[in-house]
């Protein structure tokens, strides 16, 4: 029980502001959940501090009255006594941890209580279980997301098991998932009968848990609401009180916003890649942000929002090209034109007064700066020190400094975390006002802010653009759904940090040791390659010292030269052999790995990659690993090591010549580094164009037939030519920027001797060094040159290799389908869609679809093209994972089944049939691999294709490749029917399966279909409404929503959309009537 007895507290001491709370009389009973709410500065945080004793024990001030927790007077007793009863979770995850590792943090409270190790261990295990922290044990706190940090904070309080929990704005840095998790944690603690006091701005997630909301104003308790009472308040009431919404579903778009205009793009990013610590964080093919927009960037913590915005505004490294207003800019230029208001705004205030701050490094006049400050409501603070301002004011000072510097794009990193309703409203108003001049990009988890002021929403997930849409009516439903929907739990993975080499070596697996071994051999080889120069030096010194060179006295040197030359060749070759063995085995591993991963990925996603891209992936891209493992790592490293050793040797011989060589070397390295940098810049576009070329070639070849028939040569040829031209241009551009640097470093390295020769001679003449030393130094330079050239040639390939390896990794890392291992165990074969949402390439294809297709009945899906019919069909076959909702068969979620088990239940027949190049018989047998020949023929007979198959050259044994050309569309279709018949699965999905109907086949086709669908759950998609008139249930779709459901008779009366479709179908059948050929088929 917590009891405030006429408690007052005012902050005092040296930085005391005098703010505080007055005359608090409050009793909170055991097991109660109490939320303190009110505007910023109303005293709610102070109340929490009075409970956990921080005020007055840590924050100095004037204290009157008493606060009791159970039977301890918090105001009088030591903090350590209070800390056993009261556990605290704070707002800022950054500053509430004492330890760096999670486990240490979880047990910290217990250690302070002096519990023994066994007890602590017991509690730790309990916390781990109850708080679901399995994935977060033994981690570095710095690598956790905000939500996970907050989980650890709650967990560590839980381990200490106090009777009172005090949470001070725990949700302010959290994303939607983390808030839901926090909700679960609070629920759990409540169930254990603990008392919980939460000071919070966001109220919606606490509505179902809270017993009492205590509303505070200016340090006084004004009112106490129950959940019901609070939820009855209208938005205006809440706003007047400075409270945030209580129910997200009631949120509306701000009326003040005008129509959303489609602006010209202000930021354009192409092939953007950001890699941090060896992990690809952002991978965006194309992104355009409209000018003068207020763009909300949403997505879960760790999805890459911050990394993306840092890359866009030029303070984070990225690959690919980014243009502002159509002009490609470098990182530095971008950072000059943009600004980011950081979450921790303290970091960006540099000066002693506000006016100095905003005028720093800008050429703006003082009057103009003052008028900008006035506009932002900062007029009174002009001379104040920025650090004395409130959080919201500091934020506005930062914005003012951006405006004064004439920035065009301002990024905001979670600007409303910790802001109350008023602050949020003020900010959104400001953003709306400014949208006339600048573009704002806001990373946020705050639906209220988004609906108040944003014009567009950019949704990032796993570093990929999930969707980009304007915030119109539809956008509002979508964003509300995003913030309210349940979604899957996921935890950040314990990321391992690898450089490029580390990643490649990882793929090598057990062959890694071969690579190291190869490196060893090559180092030996390189050393052996350098030794002969010593022999040459010996010979030359003899010559210079005017000793006669006889076979006797030079035998040793000569044989040494020969021997080491031979050894060099041998060890080097052997090393190469080893490294190639490792490399090719690794290639095998990666290819198999990639194939396995592709198998598990959503089929649709794999299709979207395009055959060209996949082929390139398997062939060229993976092949580049060979360069890495067989050459760059062993050869490059050994050359670098031995080269460095030689250089050090050179220093030993003569420091002046060495210094000179080092200077030249540094120049050369500088040049090659420059080449690497500019090359990297252009590499992205270069590869994008090669990817495009690849796909165009394939399109060109596969479309050749159509092109010729319709005489569209010119058009498709143009596209082809353009791709080729683009590829040439980008390739040339890449070479153009690299050329000068390449020439420079090659010149510097290859002719190292050229520079050291005259210098050495000069030194000899001056008498600084002896001739013998000069020669030795020259010999070392000779040995050094080729090594450097070789190494640099390898380094030159790195950008390209790196890029290719990344694209392979991207394909491997793509999210796999959610699949369980279960067998089918549904009680029947009803297909049930429950509020299914699914978006495809940013467009929402299904917007909350719910229906049931019953067993033994035929359900037809109709609608215009693009209404989502085929999507539904593909989802039943689990081609994609849905965004939310459930698809169940007989009550079992299809995601729990493995793909092959699902395949046993569902037969999906599309209009295209793929025939493997095997005999027709084998092709039919694919439906059921263990079927006998008789079964196959029987199925073929039922599908009415026995007849024409018999007429083929070799009957059932004709190769499909040969027969394929002779078969008509209808015949091929019937072969696919035969497959399905053979498979005999209880669910049949016919996706436009009657598309190839022709009059003479008509009856046979219908017979075949009759045969297939007998006693099955059938889903039919048909353009021709006539063919589904008899369906048990017809579902009418429009733009991803169900607009009508019922039988033909019901729908023709009740559903506008269906009537429209039906009339259109009637009309078109009446045209064909005049042709006189197809008339019968429609009314059949």
């Amino acid at each position, binding site marked *: 029980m917590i009891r405030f007895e006429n408690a007052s507290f005012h902050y005092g001491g040296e930085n005391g502001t005098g703010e505080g709370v007055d005359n608090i009389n409050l009793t909170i009973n055991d097991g109660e959940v109490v939320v303190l709410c009110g505007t910023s500065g109303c005293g709610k945080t102070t109340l929490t501090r009075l409970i956990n004793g921080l005020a007055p024990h*840590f924050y100095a001030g004037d204290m009157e009255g008493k606060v009791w927790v159970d039977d301890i007077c918090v105001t009088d007793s030591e903090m350590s006594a209070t800390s*056993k009863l009261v556990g605290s979770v704070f707002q800022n995850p950054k*500053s509430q941890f004492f330890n760096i590792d999670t486990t240490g943090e979880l047990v910290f409270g217990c250690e302070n209580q002096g519990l023994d190790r066994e007890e602590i261990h017991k509690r730790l295990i309990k916390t781990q279980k109850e708080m679901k922290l399995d994935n977060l044990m033994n981690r570095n706190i710095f690598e956790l997301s905000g939500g996970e940090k907050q989980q650890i904070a709650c967990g560590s309080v839980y381990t200490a098991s106090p009777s009172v929990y005090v949470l001070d704005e725990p949700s302010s840095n959290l994303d939607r998932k983390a808030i839901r998790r926090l909700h679960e944690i609070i629920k759990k603690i409540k169930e254990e009968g603990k008392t919980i006091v939460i000071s919070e701005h966001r109220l919606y997630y606490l509505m179902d848990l809270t017993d009492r909301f205590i509303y505070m104003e200016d340090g006084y308790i004004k009112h106490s609401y129950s959940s019901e009472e609070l939820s009855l308040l209208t938005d205006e009431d809440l706003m007047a009180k400075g409270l945030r919404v209580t129910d997200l579903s009631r949120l509306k778009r701000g009326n003040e916003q005008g129509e959303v205009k489609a602006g010209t793009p202000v930021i354009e990013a192409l092939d953007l890649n950001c890699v941090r610590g060896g992990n690809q964080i952002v991978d965006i093919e194309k992104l355009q942000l409209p000018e003068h927009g207020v763009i909300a960037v949403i997505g879960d913590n760790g999805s890459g929002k911050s990394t993306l915005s840092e890359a866009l505004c030029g*303070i984070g490294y990225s690959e690919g090209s980014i243009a502002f207003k159509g002009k490609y800019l470098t990182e530095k230029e971008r950072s000059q034109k943009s600004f980011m208001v*950081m979450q921790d705004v*303290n970091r*960006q205030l*540099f000066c002693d007064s506000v006016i100095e701050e905003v005028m720093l490094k800008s050429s703006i006049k003082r009057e103009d700066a003052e008028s900008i400050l006035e506009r932002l409501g900062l007029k009174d603070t002009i001379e104040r020190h920025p650090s004395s301002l409130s959080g919201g004011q500091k934020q506005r000072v930062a914005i003012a400094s951006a405006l004064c510097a004439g920035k065009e794009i301002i990024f905001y990193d979670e600007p409303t975390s910790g802001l109350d309703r008023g602050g949020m409203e003020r900010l959104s108003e400001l953003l709306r006002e400014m949208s006339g001049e600048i573009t704002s990009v806001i990373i946020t988890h705050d639906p209220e802010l988004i609906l108040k002021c944003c014009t567009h929403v950019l949704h990032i997930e796993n570093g990929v653009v999930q969707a980009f849409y304007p915030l119109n009516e539809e956008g509002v439903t979508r964003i509300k759904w995003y913030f309210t929907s349940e979604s899957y739990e996921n935890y950040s993975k314990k990321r391992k940090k690898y450089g490029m080499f580390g990643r490649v070596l990882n793929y090598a697996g057990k062959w890694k040791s071969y690579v190291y071994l190869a490196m060893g051999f090559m180092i030996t080889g390189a050393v052996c390659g350098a030794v002969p120069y010593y022999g040459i030096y010996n010979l030359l010194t003899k010559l210079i010292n005017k000793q006669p060179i006889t076979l006797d006295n030079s035998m040793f040197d000569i044989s040494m030269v020969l021997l080491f030359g031979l050894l060099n060749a041998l060890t080097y070759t052997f090393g190469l052999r080893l490294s190639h063995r490792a490399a090719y085995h690794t290639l095998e591993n990666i290819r198999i790995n990639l194939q396995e991963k592709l198998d598990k990925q959503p089929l649709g996603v794999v299709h979207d990659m395009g055959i060209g891209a996949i082929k390139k992936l398997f062939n060229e891209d993976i092949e580049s690993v060979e360069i890495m493992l067989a050459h760059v790592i062993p050869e490059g490293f050994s050359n670098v090591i031995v080269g460095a050793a030689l250089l050090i040797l050179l220093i030993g011989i003569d420091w002046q010549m060495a210094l000179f060589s080092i200077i030249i070397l540094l120049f050369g390295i500088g040049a090659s580094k420059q080449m690497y940098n500019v090359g990297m810049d252009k590499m992205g576009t270069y590869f994008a164009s090669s990817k495009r070329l690849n796909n165009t070639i394939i399109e060109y070849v596969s479309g050749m037939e159509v092109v010729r028939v319709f005489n569209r040569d010119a058009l498709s040829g143009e596209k082809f030519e353009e791709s080729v031209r683009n590829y040439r241009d980008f390739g040339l551009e890449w070479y153009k920027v690299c050329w000068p640097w390449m020439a420079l470093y090659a010149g510097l390295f290859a002719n190292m001797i050229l520079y050291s020769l005259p210098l050495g001679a000069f030194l000899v003449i001056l008498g600084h060094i002896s001739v013998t030393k000069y020669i030795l130094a020259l010999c070392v330079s000779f040995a050094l040159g080729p090594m450097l050239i070789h190494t640099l040639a390898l380094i030159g390939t790195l950008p390209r290799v790196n890029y290719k390896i990344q694209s392979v990794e991207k394909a491997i890392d793509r999210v796999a389908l959610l699949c369980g291992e279960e067998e089918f165990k549904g009680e029947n074969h009803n297909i049930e869609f429950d509020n299914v949402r699914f978006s495809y390439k940013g467009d929402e294809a299904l917007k909350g679809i719910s229906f049931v297709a019953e067993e033994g009945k035929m359900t037809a899906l109709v609608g215009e093209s693009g209404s989502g019919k085929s999507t539904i069909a593909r989802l039943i076959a689990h081609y994609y994972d849905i965004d939310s909702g459930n698809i169940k068969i007989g009550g079992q979620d299809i995601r729990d089944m493995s793909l092959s088990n699902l395949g046993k239940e569902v037969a999906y027949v599309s209009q295209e049939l793929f025939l493997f190049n095997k005999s027709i018989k084998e092709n039919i047998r694919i439906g059921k691999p263990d079927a006998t020949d008789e079964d196959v023929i029987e199925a073929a007979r039922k599908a009415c294709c026995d007849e024409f198959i018999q007429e083929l050259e070799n009957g059932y044994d004709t190769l499909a490749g040969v027969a394929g050309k002779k078969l008509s569309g209808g015949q091929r279709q019937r072969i696919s029917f035969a497959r399905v018949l053979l498979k005999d699965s209880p669910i049949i999905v016919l996706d436009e399966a009657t598309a190839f109907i022709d009059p003479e086949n008509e009856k046979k086709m219908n017979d075949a279909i009759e045969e297939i669908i007998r006693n099955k759950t059938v889903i039919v998609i048909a353009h021709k409404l006539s063919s589904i008139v008899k369906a048990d249930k017809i579902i009418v779709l429009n733009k991803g929503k169900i607009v009508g459901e019922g039988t033909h008779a019901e729908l023709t009366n009740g559903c506008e959309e269906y009537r429209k479709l039906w009339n259109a179908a009637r009309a078109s059948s009446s045209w064909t009537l005049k042709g006189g050929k197809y008339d019968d088929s429609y009314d059949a």
Partner: protein
Amino acid sequence: MDLTFYGEEDNSLVKIDPRTKFLIFIGSGIMCFASYSDLGVIIYSALLCVIFVLCGKKFTALKSALLLGVMLYLRVILKNSQGAPSVILLLVTALSTVFMFGFPTVMSLLLIIKTTKISQFLAAFQAIHLPIKLIIPIAVFFRFLPTVADEWNGVRKAMAFRGIVISPVQIICHPWRTIEYMLIPMLFSSISVMEELAAATMARGMDTDVKRSSYEKVRFGIVDYILVILLIGIIVFTTIIGHAAKGGIM
């Protein structure tokens, strides 16, 4: 950014007691000021590299050993080279001396920071019965290092937007202003972090009079004894015996 402070010891070969690490650190200090022979420092540094390997930081050890080797090599070469201008000679000798004698101190500090968890610190300090009033500030100091790194990272980004450049030229031309730009934001954001951190620590009952327990086990093992004996041996050899020998010769 690299935040591998206070890392785990997953791939370490042996567990070294934090107290030993502190002894090594103190030993480095003694070596740095009291050693009269290069040899002692070199042996000590080599030992440190070995300890790094034992703690699973193979690459750090290798890199530092190589760096040390090159420095020593330069030192030897220059001592024996003729014709080098005395200015350069002096400069390089001074640099390499600073490096050589600074090496153990820096390395042992790195050893503490990179391989010890905060909870181990606390446990070790308690084990040697330091008063809690002394432990807290030291622990907070170590806890604060990664925060400073983090803050600095943020401030640098903020500077980029404001066109503030931290370059040697700037530092030489406008030393005070540059320092001001660096320090003001660092201080203000650090102060707030610091205050919240201290509050959080207090609220968790850190300043208790009850004897703190520790979940983390710290034990002085065989490895620790061997290391300490080696350490004392080297220090004694370099300071006392080395000194005496030198004095004897002179």
